[in-house]
């Protein structure tokens, strides 16, 4: 940078220049730190935004007065009383339809109570407010609600309740839960890992232990790195074309005697996810295998072990913690993926638990997406609840990966 023609500064000029340099050094250092602060602020805002949405006031009205059906207060209703009310007040056709969905006798009290509020009392939500709003402007909200909806009940609600976890999907936000979605996600991730873990580990073993250093190996390696960067939605398109259409007899279960489904099943989506996480698992497993020192292999060869015996008895057991850690991280990636599932054909509305690889499916991120894009604010509230569930699952997975790594990590 310095120019030969300009003489080297001396005396006062030197000190001034030095001070200017120090000043800019300090300014830039704080700018660099500022970038990280932005990241921290963004993360805080995101978490605050989610929590803010999951709690808050809700104002609702009963279209029919519960007193018309029973004299007992709603919260003290027993199962038998509720069954009685349904028999009395529902047409036999409607009752039989409910009975068909799930026998009324086998439903729990809370399920029945929900049904009671939904079908007979016909609860009607007038508005929801975020946590911050509810806490800071409580008086104004109360005034507004009593002004606009004199009959409405205003209460502070946590949208994330134990009930929320075990209730299936519902068309009304007040009664919806994430049970179907969580089960769907677990199925998907399970199938994905059943496919990707053995295949990915096999590929990693091949590349690290067997492959010659030739052009073909190089192509495979480059290709794996590239596949890791392919947008997830492209995998969705592959899944749609390959698993949903071409392999429909397999993924719909037709060759196993299933008749009532098309290719848009858990199996098709799970396999798509498996292909998606495969490159991640291979790359992680390769790192783990690479970390096993060569002396171990040479010792095994030295006593006459074959290559596979060496790999199976010595390399793999030592690389296993690393491989598993990588797989858990890949799992958490699969758990959060949404786009490929939309493309492969997640069901928009499904309230029965998935009962096998050939059933239709929904997943936690799909639910979050659908609820977020609804206009009504109560759906945003349950979307926030579902996000907390998803983040909690991811946190558990990642924490277990870190524990596994710290527990079994060996330094050679």
């Amino acid at each position, binding site marked *: 940078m310095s120019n030969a023609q300009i003489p080297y500064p001396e005396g006062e000029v030197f000190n001034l220049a030095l001070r200017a340099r120090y000043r800019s050094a300090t300014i830039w250092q704080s700018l660099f730190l500022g970038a990280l602060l932005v990241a921290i602020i963004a993360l805080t805002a995101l978490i605050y935004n989610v929590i803010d949405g999951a709690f808050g006031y809700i104002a609702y009205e009963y279209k029919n007065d519960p007193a018309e059906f029973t004299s007992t207060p709603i919260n003290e209703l027993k199962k038998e009383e509720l069954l009685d009310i349904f028999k009395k007040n529902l047409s036999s056709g409607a009752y039989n339809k409910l009975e068909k969905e799930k026998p009324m006798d086998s439903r729990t009290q809370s399920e029945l109570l929900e049904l009671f509020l939904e079908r007979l009392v016909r609860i009607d939500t007038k508005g929801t407010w975020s946590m911050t709003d509810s806490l800071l402007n409580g008086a104004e909200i109360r005034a507004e609600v009593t002004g606009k909806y004199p009959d409405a009940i205003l209460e502070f609600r946590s949208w994330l309740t134990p009930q929320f976890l075990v209730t299936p999907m519902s068309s009304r936000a007040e009664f919806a839960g994430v049970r179907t979605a969580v089960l769907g996600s677990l199925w998907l991730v399970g199938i994905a890992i059943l496919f990707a873990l053995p*295949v990915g580990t*096999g590929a990693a073993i091949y590349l690290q232990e067997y492959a010659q250093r030739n052009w073909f190996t190089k192509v495979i390696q480059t*290709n794996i790195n590239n596949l890791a960067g392919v947008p997830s939605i492209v995998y969705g398109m592959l899944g749609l074309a390959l698993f949903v259409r071409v392999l429909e007899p397999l993924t719909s279960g037709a060759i196993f005697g299933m008749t009532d489904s098309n290719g848009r099943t858990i199996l098709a989506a799970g396999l798509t996810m498996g292909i998606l996480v495969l490159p991640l698992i291979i790359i992680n497993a390769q790192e783990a295998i690479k970390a096993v020192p060569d002396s171990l292999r040479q010792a095994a060869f030295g006593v006459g072990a074959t290559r596979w015996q060496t790999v199976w008895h010595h390399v793999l057991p030592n690389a296993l913690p690393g491989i598993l850690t990588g797989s858990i991280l890949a799992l958490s990636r699969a758990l959060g993926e949404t786009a490929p599932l939309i*493309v492969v054909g997640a069901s928009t509305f499904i309230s029965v638990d998935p009962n096998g690889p050939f059933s239709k499916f929904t997943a936690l991120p799909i639910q979050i997406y659908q609820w977020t*894009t609804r206009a009504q604010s109560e759906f945003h509230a349950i979307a926030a609840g579902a996000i907390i569930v998803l983040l909690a699952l991811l946190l558990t997975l990642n924490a277990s990966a870190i524990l596994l790594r710290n527990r079994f990590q060996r330094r050679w």
Partner: protein
Amino acid sequence: MKEETINLKKMDVKKFRELDLKKKFRAGESVVQGLLFLTGSLSIITTLAIVYELGKEALLFFNNPDVTLLKFFGTTKWQPGIGQYGIWALVSATLVTSLIAMLISLPLGLASAIYLSEYASLKMRSILKPILEILAGIPTVVYGYFALLFITPILKNFFGEHIQVYNMLSAGLVMGIMILPLISSMSEDALSAVPRSLREGAYAMGATKLETSLQIVLPAALSGIGAAIIIGVSRAVGETMIVAVAAGSGPNFSFNPLDAAETMTGHIARISGGDLSYNSIDYTSLFAIALMLFLVTLVLNLISQWVVNKFREQYE
């Protein structure tokens, strides 16, 4: 086994020559090796399957007599159902959101990488690094929620009437935050790989820490940073959920970030989410878009790998 334990004294020279020292054929070993080879080549098969399946359907789309390359690349309205095939309606939104995302993530990611690698103490790093890792681990649909329900209302306060409920600016900003950790961690790796002796040389010449970082370490790590930028762009182009939630649902040829517009990925997600009959032009057109996405990201990824390999400075 018996042949090998023959008493050597009794063995004549001829017999010794016949002793087989070649590797013994073991069927099990070969089977295992074959299986492992198969799993290894599955990644190649995946790529071929992507190219084949996407290409096949995309070819169907382009074989439609109504679709010409001139229309595809030369017009700006996209609605295959009624004969409008201008891909620019979708590409424009992808460009705008990706550009905004890079404008956010590049300076912030690079600055945080420099701080983490050059300035931060070990303790500081152990606090700051996990925050970036958490940011990197958040599912994109959650970022979508954040964009629509947090950033958009703030922008709405700021721009008032001029901004639409769904807009590219909000999606692009949040996408920038999503990509920040990627750029930061890849750049930091590149910066940390620069040997200490270079920094010490600069300090010995009287350079400040800033001068060392920006004029010595940064140029030395430039190839790694370049790769990070390219990967970041590739990620931005392929990102789906943030734009599907927050950027709008309808192709719109507009470069105004305050407008609603649909990106290529967002369009695929919306159309394929509905009931789509196979063999319709809508269906095949999605594969044409997906093929474009695949090729663009593939080229970007290949360039990034090439940059790293070609320009990696060898310090010994």
